[in-house]
C-alpha cells in the first residue's frame, strides 16, 4: 500500500518522464514527416500508462493529458483529446486487465486503440464540417497510427520501469 507521499512522488515522476519523452520526441522528430505524416506521441503514453496502472489512476492521468493537449495543441474541436483519451484509457484498462497481459504486445495494442479513439473523433468531425473524403482520412489515420506505434519500443520500457519501481 502506497502512502500519500509515495503516490505524489510516483505520479510526479511519471508526469516528468512523459514530458521528457515528449520533449525528446519534439527535438528529434518534431518537424519530420514520414510517408507524408507527422508522428504523434501522446496517445502512446496515455494508452501504455492506462494499461499498466489502476483504472481510476490511469483514467485521471489520461484526462489530465487530454486537457493539456487540448490547451496546447491545435485541435478540430476544443475537447477532442479530453474525450478521446478518457474513453480510450477506460478501454485500454479493460483490455489490460481482462484480455492481454500488460507487456510490449499489450502496449502496442493499447497505443493503436488510443489512436483509434482519437482518429474516429477527428474523422467524424472532419466529415461533418468539411465533408472530407473517408478514404483519404482513413489513409492518413492508418499511416499516423502505424508509424507512431513504432515508438512503442522507446516508451514502453521507460514507463514499465517507473511502474515497477513505484508499485512492486
Amino acid at each position, binding site marked *: 500500500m502506497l502512502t500519500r507521499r509515495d503516490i505524489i512522488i510516483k505520479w510526479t515522476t511519471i508526469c516528468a518522464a512523459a514530458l521528457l519523452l515528449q*520533449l525528446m520526441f*519534439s*527535438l528529434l522528430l*518534431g*518537424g519530420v514527416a514520414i510517408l*507524408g*505524416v*507527422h*508522428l*504523434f506521441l501522446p496517445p502512446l503514453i496515455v494508452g501504455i500508462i492506462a494499461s499498466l496502472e489502476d*483504472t*481510476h489512476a490511469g*483514467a485521471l492521468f489520461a*484526462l489530465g493529458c*487530454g*486537457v*493539456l493537449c*487540448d*490547451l*496546447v*495543441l*491545435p*485541435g*478540430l*474541436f*476544443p*475537447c477532442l483529446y*479530453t*474525450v478521446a483519451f*478518457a*474513453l480510450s*484509457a*477506460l478501454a485500454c*484498462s*479493460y483490455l489490460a*486487465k*481482462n484480455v492481454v497481459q500488460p507487456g510490449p504486445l499489450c502496449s502496442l495494442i493499447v497505443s493503436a486503440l488510443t489512436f483509434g479513439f482519437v482518429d474516429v473523433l*477527428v474523422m467524424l468531425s*472532419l466529415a461533418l*464540417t*468539411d465533408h*472530407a*473524403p473517408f478514404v*483519404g*482520412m482513413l489513409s*492518413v489515420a492508418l499511416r*499516423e497510427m502505424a508509424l507512431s506505434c513504432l515508438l512503442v519500443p522507446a516508451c514502453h520500457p521507460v514507463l514499465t520501469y517507473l511502474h515497477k519501481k513505484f508499485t512492486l
Partner: protein
Amino acid sequence: MKHFFSKYGVLLLVVTVLLAVLLSALSYFSATSSILRNAMGVVSTPFRAAASGVTGWFEDKRRYYADYSALVEENQALREELAALRSDEQQAQHDREENKLLRELLDLREQRRDFVFESAKVLEHSASNWTRTLTLNRGTSHGVAVNNVVVSSEGYMIGIVTEVGLNWCAVQELVDTDTEIGALVFRTGDVVIAEGDFALMQKNRLKVTYLPPETALLVGDYILTSGLGGYYPSNITLGTVERVETDDNGLAQYAVLAPLVDFDALTEVFIIKDYEIVE
C-alpha cells in the same frame, strides 16, 4: 465487462463531460483565445521557442549539405528569371509614368495601400496531420488580433490569425481545411472562392471554387484576395492555378491552387495588423 464499466466508467464519464463542456464553453465565449489556452500558451512559449531553435538549427545544417546541387540549379533559374524581370521592370517604369500622366489628365485619386506590419518569428509548425497551423511569437500585447492576415516577406499570403494570446498567436495556414477566402482571378477579374480541402491539404494545395461558367482559367493564373466584405485586404497573392478539374458530380469545375509560400520553411513572417486601401 458491464460490471467493469459501471464500476469505473460512470464517474469518469461525468468528469469527462464536465471538462469537455468547460473547454468548449471557454472556447466559444472567447473572442481571442480561452483564458486557459492563453495561460498555457504563455507558459509553453519559451519551451516552444527553445525546441524550435534546436530543430531549426539541425534543419539548417541538413539543408546546407543536402541541397547544394539543388541550390546551384535554382541559382541558374533565378538568374534567368531576374533577366526577364529586369526587362519587365523597364516596361513597368514606362507604364507607371504613362499611368501617372493619365491620372493627372483625368483628375483621378492616386491608388494607395497602407499596411501596418508586425514582424513575427515562427515558434512552431503544427505537427498535426489534421490541421495546418503555425504558432507565432506575437500576441495581443503587440496589437495582433483574430482575423489579421499573415504574409511572407515577398507579400504572399500565408494564412489568417485564428487565436491570440498575450505573447503568441495561432495562424491557420492557407491550405487548412477551414480556409474560405473571397478571391479573384488576376487575369480576368472573376470573383471566386479559395477554400481548403482535406485531400489537397496533404499536398500543400487548396481549391478554387464557384468558378463562373464563362471563366477559362489557365495554368499559372494568379489568384489574389478579393477584399470583398472588408475582412481581408485586397490584392494579396494567394498562389497560382496548377490545374483545373471537374468535381465528383461532374457538374462544376474547380481549380487546384498552389500557394507561392513554402510553409515548412517559414521562419519569419509579417502580420498585417491594420490596413487602408484607396482604389
